[in-house]
């Protein structure tokens, strides 16, 4: 186990705990840059999708993992990002560099406006309210047909930055690098949030609203900011998803997508950046693994192709149940345990990560 000898307060403010950690993350980043030289175009497309899901997942993570507010309606904010991004480009002929952040801002403002009334709700009631937003968003897209194209959908033009064109089919590798760059920026912003007063006030609202108030945190305002930041990031992810899908309709950003997002962060590990990535990898890789297995089985059984409808969502559901039962901290939690096991070998104890039973709580004064 590494003991970091801290000689200044900055040691706890720095992005990386120690040099070795910085080295491993840089190595990972280098590997991510070099990925196109290691795998084919199809898999690069899948990797791009992983990154986009991870961005959306990080958006929801701010809300669910950091601030402890449930949301079953984040696909709606992905939709806001995707639609506004394309509309800014089409109607105001904005370049991508301008329309993309503006799309995020639009989603963020939408999130803040919606947060004002609904964050007065707690727990399951908040979940139901956000669920309603997801359903409403689908209908709104259909109703606002002149703007959104209704059920026939909207076509996302290629991303163009200073005359250079990014297209999913034309040059998937460049698109992957672009998304990777955006992901890096968002991870950096997320880390900043965690180490600043903002992240601490989110955690305070998550763990105890009554003492957050007693420490001078304006709970209503903090929840609104959390919604705004969360929807901003999710909106950016949605805008990228729009470009990646090239054509999207009211059904693209449906309720299933909201729930998928929630599954991603729960399976990945709530409250961690890693969790969003792990979850996104599982979610994107699952259909691949299924189709590969199916092919193998077909060869083995020497029969026609086997198709089981709903297999994918069924499997994902089983995985989720498995995680909730056996590893509530998600894949990242398991990873932490394995790492600690080897770091402390042979002194790891089975109960090291067991949650202590909570003591009596103060009666809630809402």
């Amino acid at each position: 186990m590494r003991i970091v000898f801290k000689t200044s307060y900055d040691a706890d403010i720095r992005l990386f705990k120690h040099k070795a950690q910085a080295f491993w993350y840089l190595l990972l980043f280098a590997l991510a840059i070099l990925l196109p030289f290691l795998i084919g175009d199809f898999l690069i497309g899948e990797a791009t999708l992983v990154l986009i899901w991870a961005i959306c997942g990080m958006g929801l993570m701010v809300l669910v993992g950091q601030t402890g507010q449930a949301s079953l309606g984040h696909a709606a904010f992905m939709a806001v990002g995707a639609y506004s991004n394309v509309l800014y480009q089409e109607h105001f002929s904005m370049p991508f560099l301008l329309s993309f952040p503006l799309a995020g801002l639009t989603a963020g403002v939408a999130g803040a406006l919606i947060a004002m009334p609904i964050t007065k709700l707690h727990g399951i009631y908040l979940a139901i309210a956000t669920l309603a937003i997801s359903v409403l968003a689908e209908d709104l897209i259909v109703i606002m047909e002149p703007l959104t194209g209704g059920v026939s959908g909207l076509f996302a033009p290629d991303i163009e930055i200073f005359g250079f064109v990014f297209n999913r089919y034309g040059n998937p590798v460049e698109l992957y690098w672009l998304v990777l760059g955006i992901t890096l920026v968002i991870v950096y912003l997320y880390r900043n949030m965690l180490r600043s007063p903002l992240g601490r006030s989110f955690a305070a609202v998550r763990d105890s609203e009554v003492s957050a108030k007693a420490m001078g945190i304006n709970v209503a305002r903090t929840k609104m900011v959390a919604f705004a930041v969360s929807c901003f990031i999710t909106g950016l992810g949605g805008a990228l998803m729009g470009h990646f899908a090239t054509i999207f309709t009211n059904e693209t950003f449906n309720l299933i997508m909201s729930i998928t997002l929630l599954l991603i962060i729960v399976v990945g590990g709530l409250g961690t950046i890693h969790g969003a990535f792990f979850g996104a990898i599982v979610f994107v890789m699952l259909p691949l693994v299924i189709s590969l297995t199916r092919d193998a089985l077909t060869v083995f059984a020497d029969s026609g192709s086997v198709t089981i409808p709903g297999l994918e969502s069924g499997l994902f559901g089983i995985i989720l149940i498995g995680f909730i039962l056996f590893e509530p901290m998600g894949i990242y939690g398991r990873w932490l345990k394995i790492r600690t096991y080897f770091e402390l070998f042979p002194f790891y104890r089975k109960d090291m990560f067991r949650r202590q039973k909570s003591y009596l709580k103060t009666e809630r004064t809402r």
Partner: protein
Amino acid sequence: MSLLELKNVTLRFGGLVAVNDVSFSVEEGEVFALVGPNGAGKSTILNMISRLYTPAEGDILFEGKSILGAEPHDVPVLGIARTFQNIELFEQASVLQNLLVGRHTHCRSNFLTDMLFTPFVRAQERVHREAVEHVIDFLDLQPYRQKLIAGLPYGVRKVVEMGRALAVKPRLLLLDEPASGLSVEETQDVAFWIEDIKKVMGVTVLMVEHDMHLVSSVSDRVMALADGSMLSIGTPQEVQTDPAVIEAYLGSDDGTESGEAA
């Protein structure tokens, strides 16, 4: 002028009168204790001062100004910090982060500067960290700095919560049963700390406590309550020997019971 003054404060929960026409004042630099049987309204008084409850009648003055117009999150800005009876720490955060949340009222950054982590935010973080380190030194919390609250024993949590309130740099500290559930040695520590909070830090303390030994050793003045009404106010000795207080705790000689047995 008293630091804190309650004037004829009454609070009702429906038909139940939780606090009935209570008036008292806490002077700058003293330790003032509220005692009384369970359900006497002691914690309710603290909750009213930290604005979680609003009294139906009466007024609460801090430094001569009414605080009834303030929201709960404005109270620490005024200079009033508190702890809770049943420990309300941020469980999934480290001790250090918990204490830093206590510095929230002193943060001048907004969410944009925070997300970008501007040099100003970094400089501010260092200042807050230093302030928190003073509290850590004061309460001997060095071994626990980076530990998650979820894994800490009860006694340490109690101390961390006191530290978080001290990190606010309050003028008035409200302690809700600082010694409940603590061992004799830990209670002794709490007594020393309360003395030091008063003498070294110059913070006025208003506490609710059942441990009469602790109350009589640290507090300058005591008020006894029963069923939401004031029974007696004065030095610990005066209150302990007041017949009305003895009656509330033990019942009267003639067998008619008034008040709950403690």
